[in-house]
């Protein structure tokens, strides 16, 4: 029932599919890496497709009621942050 579906042959279509599934958090780790690599490499189709879905990512997060963290979390975090060494900027694949 869950056989591998063929990926779209059209590169634009592939970018659009990856962007939608990336935004929905539905990609496998390998596909996620593939899409982030496309973004990092400056693929215009991927960037354009991702730009369209970014607001939906924020919106889906906004659909969940906010939960105020316990105040001690911030205290611990600030204490940890002041002792964490800053990492030099990584390559462009470090984030979406």
């Amino acid at each position, binding site marked *: 029932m869950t056989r591998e579906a063929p990926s779209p042959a059209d590169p634009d279509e592939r970018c659009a599919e990856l962007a939608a599934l990336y935004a929905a958090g*539905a990609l496998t780790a390998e596909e996620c890496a593939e899409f982030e690599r496309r973004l990092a490499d400056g693929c215009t189709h991927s960037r354009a497709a991702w730009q369209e879905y970014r607001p939906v990512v924020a919106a889906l997060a906004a659909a969940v009621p906010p939960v105020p963290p316990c105040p001690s979390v911030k205290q611990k975090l600030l204490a940890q942050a002041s002792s964490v060494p800053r990492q*030099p900027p990584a390559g462009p694949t470090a984030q*979406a």
Partner: protein
Amino acid sequence: MSLSDATLLERIAAGELEAFGEFYDRHAPRVLGMLTRMLGRSGDAEDVLQEVFLQVWSRAADYDFHRATPLAWLIVVARSRALDHLRRRKLRGLPTDQTEQGTEDDPAAPVEQEETHRAVLAALARLPREQRLALELSFYGGLTHEQIAERLAVPLGTVKSRIRLGMGRLRTSLQPFSEVPSP
């Protein structure tokens, strides 16, 4: 006047703890809400919240204004850390499924009056059931399209289509609430 997220991230990258605290205050409740939805109401969600913001602190210099708004970046980072956590739970044989918790009928959920929140819930509610289910399983449940296909016993291509159609509809119906471009 409060600083924009992008300015705060620049200051965080420069090592300003005060900016980091402000960024945290602004977004932590939203991120924790999402993590709680994905991971349940244990202390795990707060542990992951700390991981997420520590990553913001240490990697803020990598943030690319041209590729994502600060909020979209933060959500992607948070989801990624939550999925790591779910994988670790699975390896330890602990339950990973939080998808039974619904947004609409969660009795512990406070009544939200905020306009965007209502608009998103309404847009989700307008989706065909199978599209909404696929999106909930992926975005909040942390399942990949392969896992969703397995769980629902439908072909992979069907799951991909449902997600794409659902995302497309949400994009259209949420157009008025579109993100403000980063300066």
